[in-house]
């Protein structure tokens, strides 16, 4: 019977109560949850997207750099946090499904349990000041 690890469950519960956008992935990079403030930022409700593999969500919002160059999925802070088990901060642009562009600042960190096992990663993000 599948159940997310308690650390992931508690992270989702915490994210559900926060006013800042939070996005949560598992150890494979699969999107498992994002909260209501993230829904507002991304322009899609989690109920619409559901869980999504990394290859899907990392291109859904078409992330790109300042000069318009597409940002490869593996260079997103969240994916670096999972792969390299370290906190990452960065900024980039996304294009919502309604066409609107958003300049995003993001801080991602891995979720590591007591056995030193990485369970996934969390990113908090917000609209950049520029």
């Amino acid at each position, binding site marked *: *019977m599948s*159940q*997310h690890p308690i*650390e992931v469950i*508690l992270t989702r*519960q*915490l994210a559900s109560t926060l006013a800042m956008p939070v996005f949560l992935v598992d150890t494979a990079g699969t999107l498992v949850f994002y909260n209501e403030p993230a829904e507002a930022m991304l322009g899609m409700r989690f109920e619409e997207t559901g869980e999504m593999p990394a290859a899907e969500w990392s291109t859904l919002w078409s992330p790109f750099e300042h000069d318009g160059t597409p940002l490869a999925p593996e260079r997103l802070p969240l994916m670096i946090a999972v792969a390299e088990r370290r906190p990452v901060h960065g900024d980039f642009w996304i294009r919502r499904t309604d066409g609107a562009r958003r300049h995003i600042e993001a801080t991602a960190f891995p979720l590591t349990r007591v056995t030193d096992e990485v369970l996934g990663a969390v990113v908090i993000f917000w609209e950049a000041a520029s």
Partner: protein
Amino acid sequence: MKVRLWGTRGSVASPGPDTARYGGNTSCVEVGGADGTLLVLDAGTGIRPLGRVLGTTVRRIHILLTHFHMDHVQGLGFFAPLYDSNVETHLWGPGSATLNLRARLMRYLSPPLFPVHLRDLPRLVLHDLPTGEFDIGEFRVRSDRVCHPGFTVGYRITARDATLTYLSDHEPALGVPRFPLAADWTSGHALAHDATLLVHDAHYSLAEYAQHVGWGHSALEHAIAFAELARARHLVTFHHDPAHDDDTIDRLTAAATASLPPGLRVTAGAEGAVFEL
């Protein structure tokens, strides 16, 4: 397997005439196997009377701790078999992010809180809980962290076709406005699904829970909803609030079980109760 409740009270022992039927001892459950394997879940004050009745034929005991709050370890130093060199006691429990089982245990079992040192116990073997499943005698044991402050685990114990799930201190409704969520997002579900017998925290009434969110315990109604989600067959409520006398437990149980889902049986856990699975 045979399951006997030796302590069903939460937080602090509460003996007295008003709690005589459900009992005043804190968490302790005996699990006996057909092959003679003896498990003891938690070492609250209920473990002391258990130690007094264990016969001289018992040579090996496995104590499985869920966590180190006092109501779950306070009886340990008063468990007579620990001082009997003819008895090998295996103690299993979770480490934390920085301390192993021995270090955590020594915070209680050492002066000034207790006069006896761990090293003075003749045949005590400590086991930091392994991840995943492991076997003790005929039992297949699975432990997993659950929602309760600190490093707390629950247990799923299976022998043949019977499964006991023990979630003595558990707040799966924490942060969930409309409990329960889906099974895969519910703390403890992996341990409790399809359990023959589910021993689960039911510390509060719903009104009391609203005043104690985040304290690590469940309302009786949450325990029932959790049992339904997990498709457990028999829920035994546990970790009764020390402020609840027998009549209060009767009243709360009657109200919460007035309309149970089909296939679920609910029993208020009482000290001395025995369940054959």
